């Protein structure tokens, strides 16, 4: 619908939703709604009509059924840590269905290494809860202290250790999903995948556009016997990238290979997250190995050899848990530390084949230099997943224009190198206009058809993930602003 024609929530509809959700569980006052206008990609704002805070699958289903009857669009939301605008309310007015209060760990089958959970469980809380059984939940996005499992499934999120363990979809066995019309669908369950097309797998990463997750069966893994954390420092990032390629080609079974460049190291080392990274290094690689102590020792020897042969300036290995935590503190606190460099940080997310890492880094560096931008890189090198981070000040509109132009060029370079638009943050509204650069019209039509098969009325999180006609026009004209960026500051 055109954005100037806004949906409204009538008083009677508000009453109906109130009755379904219970007292105080439908937020409609402006002050409460304010925090729901954005997710962690703060360029975009959209006020919701209301926010529903359901506690059960039935409440979600009834809320959805009611909105469906009234043809009011709606968007599921978790913790709002998404970085592509996925949890933003629908343009033109819509209701947010926030599943954070559905935060129960319902069942842990320790012997079978499975758990049944609600979508509002915070990622890290699940690992903490199953630790007493010697188990863990493997996907560990850097936002794991805040983000929810529902949001993780919707974004098919990954973390540093997904290099070994895979993304969220490799750890989800089953889901209860409320569909657009309020019907409840059970996909998969506490069992290995059954034969047939994988509806659950294709639901993962659907960014809240196909249904609302209200319960999950997830896989748990034994906590590794031994962990080794190594840090290699290098003269520059391309040299570090070459060491990454060697590790991949030689079959090092690392659980994480993370890279930080000079600017990031400087920011980290002069912040409370100081990790003891050598200050004169142009780049560091943080490599972690999980497994049997003898396997870890074996792979550790290989990593050290590759570091040495790859001209590492310095090699450290964490001597104890305290040291290990310190080395990771720098990586985990990198965004916080960079916050000191400039008021705003644009965290980009693209991915390239690992054989193209070095070239991608060189070209991205050139692009930012050409636009006079301050670039810092901290990324999941082992998976070719780049996060060029650009520091800027959003009040400086001219600078923001350059940031967005650079983003567009970076995306194009990564696609040219055989990469993809997003490795983990998703498309949301941030990258929807770029979809045309990666996919043909027929591919996009197949995506549209797939979405309509799930959500014929397109009431579920409309305007996300797929290009809208306006968004395409913006990217074709190579406008130096956020594509379709009417929400831009």
């Amino acid at each position, binding site marked *: 619908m055109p954005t100037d024609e806004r949906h409204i929530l009538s008083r009677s509809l508000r009453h109906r939703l109130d009755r379904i959700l219970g007292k105080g569980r439908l937020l409609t006052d402006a002050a409460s709604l304010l925090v729901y206008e954005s997710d962690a990609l703060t360029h975009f704002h959209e006020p919701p009509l209301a926010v529903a805070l359901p506690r059960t699958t039935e409440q979600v289903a009834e809320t959805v059924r009611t909105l469906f009857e009234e043809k009011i669009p709606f968007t599921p939301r978790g913790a709002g840590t998404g970085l592509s605008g996925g949890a933003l309310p629908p343009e033109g007015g819509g209701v947010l269905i926030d599943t954070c209060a559905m935060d129960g760990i319902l069942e842990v089958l320790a*012997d079978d290494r499975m758990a049944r959970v609600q979508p509002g469980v915070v990622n890290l809380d699940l690992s903490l809860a199953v630790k007493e059984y010697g188990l863990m939940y493997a996907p560990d996005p850097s936002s794991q202290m805040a983000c929810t499992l529902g949001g993780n499934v919707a*974004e*098919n999120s*990954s973390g540093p250790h997904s290099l070994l363990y*895979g*993304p969220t*979809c490799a750890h989800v066995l*089953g889901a209860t999903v409320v569909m657009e019309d309020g019907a409840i*669908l*059970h*996909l998969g*369950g*506490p*069992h*290995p*995948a*059954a*034969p*047939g*097309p*994988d*509806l659950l*797998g*294709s639901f993962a*990463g659907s960014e809240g556009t196909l249904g609302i997750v209200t319960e999950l069966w997830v896989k748990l893994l034994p906590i590794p016997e031994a962990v080794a954390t190594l840090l290699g420092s290098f003269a520059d990032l391309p040299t570090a990238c070459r060491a990454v390629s060697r590790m*991949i*080609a*030689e079959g*090092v*079974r690392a659980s994480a290979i993370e890279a930080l460049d000079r600017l990031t190291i400087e920011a980290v080392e002069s912040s409370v997250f100081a990790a003891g990274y050598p200050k004169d290094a142009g780049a560091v690689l943080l490599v972690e190995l999980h*497994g049997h102590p*003898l*396997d870890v020792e*074996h792979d550790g020897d290989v990593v050290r050899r590759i570091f040495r042969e790859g001209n590492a300036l310095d090699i450290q290995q964490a001597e104890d848990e305290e040291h290990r935590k310190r080395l990771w503190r720098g990586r985990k606190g990198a965004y916080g530390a960079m916050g000191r460099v400039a008021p705003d940080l644009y965290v980009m997310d693209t*991915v390239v*084949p690992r*054989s193209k890492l070095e070239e991608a880094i060189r070209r991205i560096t050139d692009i930012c230099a050409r636009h006079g931008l301050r670039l810092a890189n901290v990324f999941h090198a082992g*998976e*070719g997943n780049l996060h060029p981070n650009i520091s800027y000040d959003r009040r400086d509109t001219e600078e923001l224009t350059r940031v967005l132009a650079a983003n567009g060029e970076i995306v194009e370079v990564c696609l040219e190198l*055989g*990469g*993809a*638009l997003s*490795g*983990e*943050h998703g498309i949301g509204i941030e*990258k929807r206009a770029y*979809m045309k650069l*990666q*996919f043909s019209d*027929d*591919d996009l039509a*197949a*995506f549209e*058809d*797939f979405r309509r*098969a*799930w959500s014929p009325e397109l009431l579920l999180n409309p305007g996300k*993930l*797929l290009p809208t006609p306006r968004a395409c026009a913006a990217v074709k004209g190579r406008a130096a602003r956020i594509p379709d960026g009417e929400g831009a500051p």
Partner: protein
Amino acid sequence: MKDLAGERILCRDEAAVLKALREARRQGAAIVPGGSEFPSPPEQGDASHAYLSLAPMDRVLSFDRTDLTITVQPGMTLAALNAALVGSGQRSTLEAPDPETWTVGGLVAGRAPSFSEGAHGPVKNHVLGLRCVDGAGRSLAFGGRVVKNVTGYDLVRLLSGSRGTLAVLTEVTLRLTPVPPATSTWVFQRPADEDPGPLVARLRTLPYRMTRLVVVQGEAVGVEGRPTLIALTLEGAPATLADATRKLESLTPGGEPIEDDAARELWQTLLAFSEEKARHLEAGGAVSVVLDLARRLRPRMVDRRGALVIDALGGKLHYTEAAEESDHDAWWAELKLGEYLNARGAWAALPSDPLDAVHGPRRFGRPSPKELELLLRIRRSFDPDGILSPGRTAWSPAS
């Protein structure tokens, strides 16, 4: 083009697939894709269906060791894929009873039998990208060559396992994994009447990287009166496996390692059993559930000279009886299998379900009406005229 009914169309490239599907759509002719040159028994089906053979599309398209991925055409056999990787230090996680005849396309689009799924995850976890032609005659590409990708819907996963009902795959990119420094396979032989549960539980908690753990009971491998056999594969550094050897030898009851060739033969035999002989029941569930189900089936198995193969890492069970024919409905009802499995969130399939000659869909875990409705809508969007493999699955009805 002539009437396609009953024809065999050999495709050399994607353009040929596109041409054939557009023509089939024009004629309203049914098409069944397959990896072999001639339709083999499971795919023969209806004689009026045209058989689209991908066998000539059997090449590696790109392979770069630093990417740890490979892109191949769908008609490439698993044996050829493995041969292409020899010496690279990398391997695919695909397995098949007969690597010389099973193709990458068939394993990705169809069924991919495996006893290492518990460790490596199902095949679809390793399919990074694909190209295909759908029933609407569109040439499509999803996913990519990158190992991490959340761009758009994951239709790669949807098409994996869709058994030629949505699109014909023309190119597949697979994630590879490093060949481990060392591998060893161990076998434990136990009295036939001993419950394997406790030993399996102990083995499962060993601190080594275990990629297979399988229990074989009855006459699965064709030897009458065979004791229960528990086989496992370990991978890791030589020092780790030496440590494992000491540990496994000291266990009571003890096991013994077998040679690599013998191990390969054992796994091939069990894969062939699970695919071709286990015609009476296939079930998937939590490991404790499939072990318990095996306990329930055992008396019947002994009675009917049957066999059970249980994947104790992946949570699958394959069961067969000596007599080919049996009234499944009757004995499933007698054992209350439906209620039993439903109560435990498990699924079961009758491999010989007539809906799909050999590779039948789930019987108890058959799609719910809502799921089926969704699958039918998805199928219509890919194949509006229903020309691809009609009548083969619940979501691709004959008309």
